[in-house]
């Protein structure tokens, strides 16, 4: 191996930086029409009438569509049985709308401006109904009910994850440490909003769509429209970030495609930024009431409690799984905790549907556990690092948690020690003592975590096809589908080494079902493991077969568990409550590293998003269910000046589960930094008697808490 492991600059960037990317909105085709979505302005209302007469007669309008025009389109891919109601496409008279931004009708015209003008002429009569947006309040018996026939009111599922003997653990515990913790609702805010360009040609269909899952979209469209998958081509092209939200297929996108088929003309729709805040899935929205049982020597014996998970007004395919299969089973994190009993309550409310958002359950689990561990430290008087040390799973190459997660390998103590060493932890604590003596509010926080990656959602696995071109150069086509990760670079490195050809001679192709073999796409930190394995296997098959082309399928031994420890140093301005992050030390163990620059890029981006959740991002609604954060003037995505410098280091514990030894790590920054920041701020506020504050830790929230404490 010569180039794997090297910090090769991304092959993607020159074209993107020069504006030569091909995003959906860069594309046009002859005869193109443009769509505008009419959305509900109410959080909850009954539609008494829809009149599209004036809109249909408006200049340039080719068609106006409601649910009545799309009865032939099959249902969107829904959530697993028994978890809740699936999203409808559009609405018609007598239907209810259940969140601000829900698609009601679609207007198609010969220009985007005319479509927008005509959309204002669609007359929808709404009879407003009471709304509820908070998941805990929505679960209360007196809350306005969104759907008939759920478990109870708005509770759409209620499951329990149990292992070990929690009652005995709590009976034996010297300490009980509990806290209500909110992982607030967030908007993903990809740089590129969603979009679609549907081009029907007879019975065939070409859809260009900003997606993380081109083959998934092809399968879903084939099903919904009742046409063979072979007649559908899905092209992602360049995709400007997804963070999970470009995984699902959305009602508005399907309505645009359906309209194109009905009109027999190509139609494009590009989501506006304001729409994106309403119509693109949000993440998190959980309220956790959790408690730890702790022995006299600081050993965590058990975790119990309840987590209310907001689902939004309807369930996207993975919303329930985020809390049931991701968050809850990960509560043990890096610790040897023998007993868990958590109740998981899924709740619908008059809010944008929840979807996967960077980490999708992983950041929530790490946040709850790592906040509680710091509260254990405060309760027992032990140093937070020492509590962690006493509870770590020992170094292993295979560990089964009591919740059934099988960690592939890890050395959590080594990761923590690397973070403490990089930070100069002992000196930081001494500096903290000096700062406190001067009346400064100085805090140190950490978070140790695991990150499952490399998930294989089905069988067979993702494929790769490696072709030796007549020129001698190599084309690698792969079924994972990058939207910022740098697969062109990383997979070319893998193929260059495997085939013994120069890196520059390898071209990587993905994101087009006509050009790339089958794959599940890119999400959940899966592509290095799944796509990478497929690529090296295909290269090996090519060398063994001696032909010009070979295809191989990724066979991996299961989910990889990267780990990390992030440490933050903060100082709070006591006059204003503003938090300044002085240092972020990020230590990741993602097994073998294909390209350290790409790993660092993931860390930096993840840290930016984690800082956002910790300090400033929050999707808010008022009492009527109207969003209060539906623009970049109100929703505080961190700007460059608000993101700290990140000091990175690595520990390398290879995965035994795949030939590369790699572990997925695309969410680690978001998982690790958020609890570390909150723990650091709470460390700074502890001397003021403040035990816990919910995110985002805005200046006013902190200032108010200090005022309260000072008055005590």
């Amino acid at each position, binding site marked *: 191996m010569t180039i794997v492991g090297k910090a090769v600059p991304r092959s993607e960037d020159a074209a993107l930086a020069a504006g030569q990317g091909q995003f959906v909105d860069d594309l046009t085709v002859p005869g193109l029409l443009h769509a505008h979505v009419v959305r509900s302005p109410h959080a909850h209302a009954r539609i008494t009438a829809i009149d599209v007469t004036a809109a249909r007669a408006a200049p340039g309008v080719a068609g106006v569509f409601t649910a009545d025009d799309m009865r032939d389109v099959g249902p969107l891919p829904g959530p697993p049985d028994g978890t809740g109601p699936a999203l409808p496409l559009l609405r018609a008279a007598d239907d209810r709308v259940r969140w601000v931004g829900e698609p009601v009708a679609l207007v198609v015209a010969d220009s985007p401006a005319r479509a927008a*003008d005509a959309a*204002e002429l669609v007359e929808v009569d709404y009879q407003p109904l009471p709304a509820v947006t908070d998941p805990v309040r929505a679960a209360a018996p007196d809350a306005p009910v969104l759907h008939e026939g759920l478990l109870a009111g708005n509770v759409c599922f209620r499951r329990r994850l149990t292992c070990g003997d929690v009652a005995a653990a709590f009976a034996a515990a010297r300490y009980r440490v509990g806290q209500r913790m909110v992982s607030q609702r967030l908007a993903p805010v990809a740089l590129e909003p969603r979009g679609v360009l549907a081009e029907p040609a007879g019975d065939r269909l070409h859809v260009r769509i900003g997606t993380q899952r081109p083959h998934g979209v092809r399968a879903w469209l084939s099903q919904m429209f009742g046409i063979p998958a072979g007649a559908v081509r899905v092209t992602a092209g360049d995709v400007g970030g997804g963070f999970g939200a470009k995984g699902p297929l959305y009602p508005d996108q399907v309505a645009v495609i359906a309209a194109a088929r009905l009109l027999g003309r190509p139609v494009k729709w590009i989501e506006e930024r*304001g729409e994106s805040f309403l119509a693109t899935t949000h993440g998190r929205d959980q309220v956790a009431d959790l408690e730890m049982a702790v022995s006299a020597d600081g050993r965590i014996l058990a975790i119990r409690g309840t987590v209310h998970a907001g689902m939004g007004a309807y369930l996207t395919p993975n919303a329930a799984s985020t809390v049931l299969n991701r968050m809850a089973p990960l509560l043990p994190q890096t610790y040897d905790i023998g007993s868990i009993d958590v109740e998981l309550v899924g709740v619908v409310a008059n809010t944008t549907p929840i979807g996967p958002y960077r980490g999708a359950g992983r950041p929530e689990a790490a946040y709850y556990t790592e906040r509680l561990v710091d509260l254990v430290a405060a309760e027992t008087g032990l140093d937070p690092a020492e509590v962690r040390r006493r509870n770590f799973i020992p170094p292993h190459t295979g560990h089964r948690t009591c919740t059934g997660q099988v960690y592939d390998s890890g050395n959590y103590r080594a990761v923590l020690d690397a973070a403490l060493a990089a930070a100069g932890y002992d000196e930081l604590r001494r500096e903290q003592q000096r700062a406190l003596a001067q009346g400064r509010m100085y805090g140190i926080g950490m978070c140790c975590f695991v990150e499952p990656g490399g998930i294989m959602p089905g069988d067979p696995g993702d494929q790769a096809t490696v072709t030796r071109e007549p020129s001698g150069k190599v084309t690698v086509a792969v079924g994972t589908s990058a939207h910022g990760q740098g697969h062109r670079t990383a997979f070319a490195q893998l193929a260059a080494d495997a085939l013994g050809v120069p890196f520059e001679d390898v071209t990587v192709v993905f994101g087009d079902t006509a050009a790339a073999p089958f794959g599940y796409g890119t999400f959940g930190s899966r592509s290095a493991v799944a796509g990478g394995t497929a690529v090296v296997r295909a290269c090996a098959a090519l060398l063994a077969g001696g032909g010009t082309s070979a295809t191989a399928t990724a066979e991996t031994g299961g989910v990889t568990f990267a780990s990390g420890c992030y440490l933050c140093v903060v100082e709070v301005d006591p006059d*204003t409550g503003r938090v300044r992050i002085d240092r972020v030390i990020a230590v990741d163990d993602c097994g073998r590293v294909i390209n350290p620059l790409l790993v660092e890029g993931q860390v930096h981006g993840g840290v930016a998003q984690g800082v956002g959740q910790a300090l400033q991002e929050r999707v808010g609604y008022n009492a009527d269910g109207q969003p209060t954060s539906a623009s970049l003037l109100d*929703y*505080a995505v961190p700007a460059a000046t608000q993101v700290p410098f990140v000091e990175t280091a690595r520990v390398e514990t290879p995965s035994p589960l795949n030939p590369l030894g790699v572990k997925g790590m695309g969410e680690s920054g978001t998982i690790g930094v958020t609890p570390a920041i909150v723990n650091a701020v709470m460390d700074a506020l502890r001397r003021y008697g403040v035990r816990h504050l919910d995110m985002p830790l805005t200046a*006013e929230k902190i200032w108010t808490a200090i005022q309260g404490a000072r008055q005590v």
Partner: protein
Amino acid sequence: MYPAEFGYERAGSVEHALAVLADGGGEVKVLAGGQSLLPMMKLRLAMPELLVDIGGLAELAAIEVKPERAVLGAVATYRSLQQDPMVGEAFPAMADALAVLADPQVRARGTVGGAVAHADPAADLPAVLLALDAELTVAGRAGTRTVPIDGFLQGVFATDLADDELLTRITLPAAGRGQAYQKFEQPASHLPLAGVCAAVEVAEGVISSARIAVTGVAGRPFRARGAERALAGAAPEADAIRNAAALVREEPVQPLQDQHASGPFRLHLAGVLAGRALQRAVSRAVRP
């Protein structure tokens, strides 16, 4: 993000712009840098029938800094002000504000007159102009009039400007270097949750005059007169500054309140920032 249909007319002169405004019957909006108006139109919060574009009027773009006063043309951009060394030299508080105002793209197009005429309660520059006692020149068909900025700013997006009038220039009297602007940003918009401009004159070891203007806190930028009075004649030291900063919070204003900050917190911030701005202003005033 597609505005409703609108007409567009590029003004060739102030007289031309005034004629268009007079004919428009209130349905005409003046376009200068467009950094507030165009986003509002794209969101269809504003749907004017006609725009009259004064952004290209060279007669309104000039910046003239003289020892006795400075005259800023209404369509002088933030960037042109920032890049004019005379402006920063004569008005350090303006340099402070321009350095933390919006981003390079907005500064390249946004205009000083636009900031005043738009009357966003959370704009940075109006506070500086208020503390520096700016006088505004307003052109109408009947001629021009001048109005102090304190009388011009009337409330949230409300000014003394009639539908058929045009703000043409801003005149600043000469000021000492004892001035500073401090801001606490709303984290999404980067507009001030509170912003304070302090301008002090220090003579013979005492503060001979102080002007303090606060933005972001109330429906319009306001002068903190109680604090100003308390500073007059005081020694330029920490006690007096602390006392004055506390008085800023006592100003009889109705504080703004939204999802980003409560009214009391905005007032509290105004006090903190007033202390910091005064500190810096005093140190600039007494620096040899």
